[in-house]
């Protein structure tokens, strides 16, 4: 087992925001989804991993190297797909590619040509005229052509229509057919992750909620629905978040087994989706 990305006791604060003691690791050949509400600290974490901002404390190891000290070596092996435009808008795909290719020792022009064709990108098109989806495909083509073994993406699916998101997932599935490729991406669109992600790291208000295999998470959590009169003090403690209304309650538990014993006869017990887990953790107890 080789660890491609390891975040240890990572801390960063500015203004009111605090990223507090973040820990997680990602094994080679797997996909990790990074989830959390807006402002939870996802982009901050990614910027720290990419060494775009300075951390206050902790360590980030990538391919066993230090993210700050060995930045140059690491970046040869990382493909970064950012949610904002990092290209020069007035250049064409081909012109931009020439600039980027110069940065990398292992640039493979043939590979690039194959990806551009597969992704149906017109090399003579000006970057400003590309849709967001096309820009992401272009960024991926660049990453895959310079020999990246770790693809890091910040919100690649936000603002994209379902058809393109589905195309992107297929592209990612093709990338991971090579078992040396590792993918880490943040998103708040959890339905994509429910398919492809092997691991989920969830942060809330700068704190780690969990970093675990998706299958384990989905087996542990459950949604319970029942009559509001069941909710006494002890029962409430069983839940991470409760949505209470005059017509009953809906709540999230992270102990499905126990819930099945407690609520077998009185409530409906259903699978929780990643979205349920995120929403109920972030919102806590609410009354509507």
């Amino acid at each position, binding site marked *: 087992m080789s660890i491609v990305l390891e975040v240890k006791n990572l801390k960063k604060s500015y203004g009111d925001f605090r990223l507090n003691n973040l820990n997680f690791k990602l094994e080679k050949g*797997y996909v990790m989804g990074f989830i959390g509400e807006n402002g939870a600290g996802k982009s901050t974490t990614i910027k720290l991993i990419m060494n775009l901002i300075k951390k206050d404390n902790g360590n980030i190891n990538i391919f066993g190297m230090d993210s700050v000290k060995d930045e140059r070596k690491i970046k040869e092996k990382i493909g970064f797909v950012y949610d904002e435009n990092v290209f020069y808008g007035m250049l064409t795909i081909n012109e931009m590619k020439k600039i980027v290719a110069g940065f990398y020792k292992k640039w493979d022009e043939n590979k690039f040509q194959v990806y551009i064709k597969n992704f149906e990108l017109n090399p003579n098109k000006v970057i400003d005229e590309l849709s967001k989806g096309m820009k992401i495909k272009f960024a991926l083509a660049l990453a895959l052509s310079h020999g990246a073994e770790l693809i890091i993406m910040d919100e690649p699916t936000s603002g994209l229509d379902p058809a393109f998101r589905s195309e992107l997932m*297929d592209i990612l599935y093709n990338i991971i057919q090579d078992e040396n490729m590792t993918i880490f991406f943040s998103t708040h669109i959890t339905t994509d992750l429910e398919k492809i992600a092997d691991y989920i790291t969830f942060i809330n208000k700068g704190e780690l909620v969990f970093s675990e295999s998706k*299958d384990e998470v989905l087996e542990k959590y459950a949604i319970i629905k029942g009559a509001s009169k069941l909710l006494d003090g002890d029962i409430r403690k069983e839940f991470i978040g409760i949505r209470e209304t005059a017509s009953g309650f809906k709540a999230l538990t992270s102990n499905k087994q126990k819930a099945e014993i407690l609520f077998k006869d009185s409530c409906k017990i259903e699978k929780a989706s990643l979205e349920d887990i995120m929403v109920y953790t972030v919102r806590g107890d609410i009354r509507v």
Partner: protein
Amino acid sequence: MDITITISNVSKDPIYKQIIDQIKGMIFSGELNEGDGLPSIRNLARDLQISVITTKRAYEELDKEGFITSFTGKGSFVSGQNKDLLREKRMRLFEEELKAVIKESKLLHLSMEEVIDIMKFLEEDVQ
């Protein structure tokens, strides 16, 4: 390797279990035979749009139970002895159930002949 596996999102069974059951089913029915290759873990994950970890877990369990054998770099194949293994396992379960029937028949003071008669009578119902 073309084999059809379908995953249901509304099933109570977890996805890895659905894969295991379907591959076992194909082995029992003879659709898959000794030496037949299975799709790679990563191919299957892509085809079914599920995670690599999930297909890996399914294959690992099938491997552990002796239904398939995986070779690093070469893929996974249906093992040879699993049909016999299965029959043996089922025979053991069958014997356990018969033992329970015999116990019950003793409580009801039924002779072995009577039990056999009842079974013959019931056989028509089952068909």
